């Protein structure tokens, strides 16, 4: 906004059925603070028409047959922080508040993720509609932790014309927010996926540690520090620190395709 002026920035608030009300409140606080034009569009009807919720719920029912729309759900990562292969667990909560969880097999996992990825991709479609309409560029806001570790949906939130803070660790993004005087509700917000109906921190969904520690682990890995040095700083065992390093590398490998352009079978050198 400082780079372009408030009159040349357009904001979009795109809640859906599983969005936290606080996300919309923080979005409104931000556009009010910036003084930019914006639009609010509930994307739940679009997602429902595409079958996003139905595909997701069908996959959940293959694991918990009694699950219905009155229940809440999320998936949570496990394994990588303990030196094992990463896998996902499905967590559900019935209307009485009873929680159950079970390890996800490959097919329901893929279907749940594919269905929920509709959310990020529909949002991006709407962003590009407005960018085309206004002849604007789409700005993406991954931080370094998310960009490096592949914490984004290809052709969803991972798509943008420019990503101006991808080089900054998440800790630094929070520091910039405080420096710019953004509303405290934003500067103090706990990062979540805001994708599943049960509350879900980013670390629970994807990262091995809370972001303050993950930032340090990624910095240490990038600067070739040893697991012993990371362990001493984070007050964890050397073995655990090595698992975190291994997990960073595993996620880089597993998500490298998200960064790649489409493969051509023969070069087209003219473009």
């Amino acid at each position, binding site marked *: 906004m400082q780079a372009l002026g408030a009159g040349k920035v357009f904001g979009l608030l795109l809640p859906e059925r599983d969005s936290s009300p606080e996300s919309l409140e923080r979005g409104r606080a931000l556009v009010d603070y910036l003084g930019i034009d914006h639009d609010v569009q509930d994307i739940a009807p679009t997602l429902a028409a595409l079958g996003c919720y139905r595909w997701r719920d069908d996959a959940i029912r293959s694991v918990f047959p009694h699950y219905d729309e009155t229940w809440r759900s999320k998936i949570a990562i496990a394994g990588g922080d303990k030196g094992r292969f990463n896998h996902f667990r499905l967590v559900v909560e019935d209307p009485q508040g009873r929680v159950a969880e079970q390890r996800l097999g490959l097919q329901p996992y893929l279907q749940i993720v594919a269905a929920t990825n509709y959310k990020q991709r529909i949002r991006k479609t709407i962003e590009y509609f407005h960018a085309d309409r206004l002849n604007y560029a789409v700005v993406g806001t991954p931080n370094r932790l998310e960009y490096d570790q592949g914490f984004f949906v290809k052709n969803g939130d991972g798509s943008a*014309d420019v990503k101006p803070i991808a080089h900054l660790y998440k800790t630094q993004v929070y520091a910039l927010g405080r420096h710019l005087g953004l509303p405290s509700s934003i500067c103090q917000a706990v990062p979540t996926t805001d994708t599943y109906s049960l509350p879900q921190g980013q670390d629970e969904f994807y990262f091995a540690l809370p972001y303050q520690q993950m930032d340090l682990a990624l910095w240490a890995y990038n600067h070739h520090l040893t697991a012993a040095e990371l362990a*001493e700083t984070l007050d964890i065992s050397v073995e655990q620190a090595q698992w975190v390093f291994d997990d960073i590398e595993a996620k880089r490998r597993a998500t490298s395709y998200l960064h790649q352009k489409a493969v051509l079978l023969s070069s087209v050198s003219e473009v």
Partner: protein
Amino acid sequence: MSAVTHVRLSAAVLEMDEAAEVARITTGLREALRSKLRRRGWSSRYPGVSIAPYAQALRCRP
């Protein structure tokens, strides 16, 4: 033996000059929009549509 033994790992390694970083991002974003995206064909994204309004919005020459 780590390659950065002179730096003790702590939250301090992530500290930065926020004002300088804001200036860097501001400059970089303007440059990206004025130059880099144009070089990637922004002006010809829609044949017959001029980049002029876009460039004007950024106060730079089309």
